[in-house]
């Protein structure tokens, strides 16, 4: 990653996405009524996106300065991606209360907090408050999971 120009990598990824959109666009069935087929705009978006990828690549190859980036703190970043994905996947099956409380405590630690007791108390109170606000106060149901509430 470090030796490559991120804008060139970006251009390639954008081109791939553009091709996927074009493929999705042209395969949209046209029911035959209406003046403009539903396939037109998605295909156009894909084609223009492909053009933007070429433009970006040309700019980069002509020596446009690559974006300045700081090195990523790999450990907290990697753990955050994993814990966030796990939380969002567990949100419905485990329910709001269990998944969110566990996530808050774990995520605070990932982000450098070393006050386990304080974080645990704060997390439980915060989740309880959110639960009361949404489920009791605003009657917006949140997933229960295995808990009875």
């Amino acid at each position, binding site marked *: 990653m470090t030796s490559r120009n991120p804008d060139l990598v970006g251009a390639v990824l954008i081109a791939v996405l553009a091709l996927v959109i074009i493929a*999705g666009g042209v395969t949209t069935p046209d029911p035959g009524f209406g003046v403009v087929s539903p396939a037109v705009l998605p295909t156009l978006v894909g084609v223009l996106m492909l053009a933007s990828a070429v433009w970006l690549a040309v700019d980069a190859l002509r020596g446009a300065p690559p974006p300045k980036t700081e090195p990523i703190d790999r450990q907290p970043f990697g753990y955050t991606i994993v814990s966030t994905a796990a939380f969002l996947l567990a949100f419905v099956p485990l329910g709001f209360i269990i998944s969110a409380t566990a996530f808050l405590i774990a*995520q605070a630690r990932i*982000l450098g907090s070393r006050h386990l007791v304080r974080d645990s108390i704060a997390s439980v109170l915060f989740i309880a408050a959110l639960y009361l606000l949404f489920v009791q106060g605003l009657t917006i149901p949140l997933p229960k999971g295995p808990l009875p509430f």
Partner: protein
Amino acid sequence: MELVNSLLGGFATALTPANLLYAGIGVLLGTAIGVLPGIGPALTISLLLPLTFSLDPVGAFIMFGGIYYGAMYGGSTTSILVNAPGESASVVTALDGYQMAKQGRAGAALATSAIGSFVAGTLATIGLMVFATILVEQAVKLGPPELFAIMIVALSAVTSLSGTSVPKSVFATLLGLGLGLVGLDNQTGQLRLTFGINELEEGIDVVLGAIGLFALSEVFWYAATLRSQDEHRESIKGPVWMTRNEFRRSVPSWLRGSGIGFFIGALPGAGATIASFMSYAIEKRVSKHKAEFGKGAIEGVAGPEAANNAAAGGHLVPLLGLGIPGSGTTAVMLAAFQIYGLQPGPLLFTTRPDLVWGLIASLYLANVMLLVLNLPLVGMWVKLLDIPKPLLFAGITVISAIGVYSLNRNAFDLVVVFVLGVIGFLMKRYDYPLGPVILGIVLGPLIDNNLRRGMIMTDGNFVAMLTRPATAVILGIALLFLVLPFAIRLYGRARGRTDLAMLTEQDPG
């Protein structure tokens, strides 16, 4: 006077105890979340959207008005006291505001910013009232071809004014349009860009876009830069008030900032960030105290703060008058209208005057409430900055999950928002602007719809559609916006200046 009667009707709606309460809750929450670093108005509204689900539309929009103005006020507090502003429109406030705070003049900086925001917010709401009514009278004459053309203007403007690289902004806009087109086509009932995934049939909601691209990406960003996080906070010394001299220096800046902010904000695509940078540049040029700029000039806080609050009012002109959002924040507001099955624009003024005028009246009230909340009570908001950052950012993820889930009660949306969060992080890291994506998601289906309805009007003749007089003029403006970044760059190169580059910084608001 029809306007006065409408406004009085609006106040009658807004002043009912329940609606006053909603406006109050709105400004409180908006300010609270706006104070937190890294959270701008678009995200504030997205995160708080579920709170309004159980309200009637009038109450919900009154609360939104409060959240919207509150979030704009809240950002300035952070940019004065902390060297990391809460939202991009306040970046320029930090230039002189943080310097003032370091010199022990935080009180004066906060006061000029709060009073300036009040003056600007009030003037902008008057402007909104006048210009939106004028626009509405004209807008009923506009057909699908003209609406299509106006949306193209909005997209071109956002594309050309955001970010530092044109192809990157173009990509961001197209990504938004593509995301907006996913799902069932409402004219033919065909599925588009769903790639066989049933859950995508309903489309990708702009709220998912805002939460993924702004909230989760912000948490990922914090985690990725954990070790380089370095925050200095200044405390407020003395009362939050100004000396007579400071007041005298602030007044003209407030008025200039209000004017610049409102008109820039009313242009589709030009954001509060641009308004605040322009105001700063103008204040610096006309000031008798040029040497103080960058070292704590009060005009450098008064002007931009007025400008970014006036821009918030300006943004509402195209949204209420035409039903077309010109910024990421108003795009999210449009989505909120759509959740209630309402389409802002000229028709809404006749079908739901209670809602439109109730919203406008409540904006006046929100401004008064915010002045009270921000002058004597500013210390209370500053305490929010004491929340430990690890808990704060973890909490943002939890609230994001609630917001996403409560939208459709659909587990798949949580996956979509995660993917968008990763995309948002990568885009932020490699300098792709995020504002155009949000606008694209909302405008995608609207552009498609108006294009196709316009083509039906002209029997499929695209050229005939684009050469209707009004359409041609509007598209000419779009072309101008597309040429503008090149012109700015050439101008900048000729003058060897860098502040113009700052003008085109991304605006997630």
